[in-house]
Structure formats: C-alpha cells, structure tokens
C-alpha cells in the first residue's frame, strides 16, 4: 500500500477553466460581474436597470443562466444589448465550463459582462466563472435573515443590492438589521438599497459599477 500526496483542490478543473475565461475576458477588456440571488429576487430587473443606466456609455454583454427557457434573454434583447442564454437543464449553478462554451467567438469587445446566475443562494457561490466579483441581490420579501442563513455568498460578494424596497411596508424586513448582519459577515461590502421596479436607488448602483469599469480600464492602461 502506498500513499501519494495530492494536495489539489477538488474543483481544480473548474478553477483552471475560470482562469482561462478570465484571460479571455481580459482580452475583451471587460469587467465581469457574477450576479447571484434566489429565484424571484429581481436579478433580471436589476440587470435591466443597470443596462438602461450604462448603455449610453458602455458596450454590454449579458449572459443569462436559467434551468430552462428564454424568458429573461427575450426581456433583455428588447433593451438592445447582446445576450447569450445558457440553459443548465438540471444544474443549480453556472460553472466555468458553461461560460467557456457560451462565450462568443467574435472579436467584439465589451466594457461590462453581466452574468445572471441560476436563482440559488448556495451553489453559485462555490463556482468561480472568471468574474471580477460577485454581486448578490437580497429582496425584502425574502426576509432580512438571509445573510445569516447563507453566509458564504454574502461573505464573498463585493456588492449587495437590497431590492424591492417599494414593498417594505408589506414585509417585516428591517433594512438596518440586514445591513448590520451583512457587515458582520463582510466588513468591506458595498450595499445599495433599491427598487428595480420604480428605479429608486438604481442610479447609485449603476454609477458604482461605472466607476469599477473605469478603474479597471485605468489599471489595464498602466
């Protein structure tokens, strides 16, 4: 009987593929944001608002991850941005391979790639796809305890958007309590309180992303 040291991460192949995706995104000169939230939190609505806000200044690609259907991509195409739909069939998250297969084989460049992951607060957090960072969305009807219950995603996210504040009076969601809990898991997180439905707060979130796009370009130039 012999013992062989391996010392390799189990998700090594996903990690390697994510790095390859990253190189491709770098060649496209894109800021890549992995948007993660539970089903119905308003991922597509938030993305639509960001697209509306940034489209005059940026070239945007949206990659839509859904178990089935084209509903979200059809919604986004109306905003006249490039959209790629991935149907995962059964998988509960996007992984680096799915992104690699879906990436366009064009030489087109995008300033911003928004990847809408499959609606789920658990699995997508573990699978890197080559993104610059994760953006998590938490909607008020879900309850302000979600950062406590799903610590990994809210720890890893650079940005958290609290959505559906227009419904606040119908829920027991306490925005301050949610932010206190978020900070306990992620002291550096940027939080935006918005309603994608009414547009409230979306300008600040859009401007933040716009700054990140510019900061990234500056970094590349230097």
């Amino acid at each position, binding site marked *: 009987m012999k*013992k062989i040291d391996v010392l390799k991460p189990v998700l090594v192949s996903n990690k390697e593929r994510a790095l390859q995706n990253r190189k491709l995104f770098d060649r496209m000169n894109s800021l890549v944001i992995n948007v993660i939230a539970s089903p119905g939190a308003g991922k597509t609505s938030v993305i639509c608002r960001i697209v509306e806000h940034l489209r005059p200044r940026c070239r945007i690609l949206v990659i839509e991850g859904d178990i089935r259907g084209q509903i979200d991509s059809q919604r986004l195409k109306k905003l006249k941005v490039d959209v790629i739909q991935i149907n995962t069939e059964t998988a509960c998250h996007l992984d680096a391979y799915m992104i690699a297969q879906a990436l366009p084989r064009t030489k087109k460049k995008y300033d911003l790639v928004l990847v809408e992951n499959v609606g789920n607060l658990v699995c997508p957090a573990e699978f890197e796809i080559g993104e610059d960072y994760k953006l998590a969305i938490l909607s008020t009807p879900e309850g302000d305890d979600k950062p406590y219950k799903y610590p990994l995603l809210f720890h890893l996210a650079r940005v958290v958007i609290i959505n559906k504040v227009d419904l606040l009076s119908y829920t027991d969601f306490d925005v301050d309590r949610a932010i206190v809990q978020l900070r*306990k898991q992620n002291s550096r997180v940027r939080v935006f309180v918005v309603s994608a439905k009414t547009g409230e707060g979306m300008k600040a979130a859009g401007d933040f992303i716009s700054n990140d796009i510019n900061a990234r370009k500056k970094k590349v130039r230097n």
Partner: protein
Amino acid sequence: MHELSVTESLVDLCRREAEKNSIRKVKRVNIALGRFTGFSRDSIRFYFEILRPNSCLEEAKLKFREIPIIIDCKKCREQSEIGEPILICPRCGNADIELRSGREFYVESIEGE
C-alpha cells in the same frame, strides 16, 4: 444537488492521480474540507457510492478532515477559531478580519496499491 458535479470532479481528480502514480486500486481518499464551504460530506459520500463502480475507486473509502474557521483580527491582531461563519473577532468585536482557513476543499492524499 451541486455535490453530484463536485463528486464527479473529485472522482476525476483521484483517477488522474492514481493513474499517474500507478495505483490500480485506491483504498482511501483523504479529503480536507473547511467548515466555511457549501459542500456536505454526506451528499459527497452519497454520490461517491453511485460514481465509484467499475473504476479504480471501487474499494475506496472517503476520509474527511474538517478544517476550522480561523480569522485574524486586523485591529487587535488576535487569531481566533470561530464556531459559525459570523466573521467578527470574538475578542474585540471588530468586523475587519482576514479569513485564514475554513474555505478549503482539496484532496490531501490517496492511498492504494
């Protein structure tokens, strides 16, 4: 559910390593699993039972070593092990911390002949 694809990755990695090191029968896979990951060892074991027949892992047992969540406080400079992922220094209450361990998920070694 995501443990199926994760366990497939685990099986692939072990097969590659076994082949590379001329191990025909893997008897044991030693895995390090941090407490701050989204992976369940029970689910991994469940899918491993399904995936291992007709491979060099047919007789293999999975052995997990749990890795605690350890944080470094940037304010009081103390290092602490915490029981759950509330990432606050238990000594001074500061939230500006560095995660030292707890996110690991890797194969430490394989044993076989």
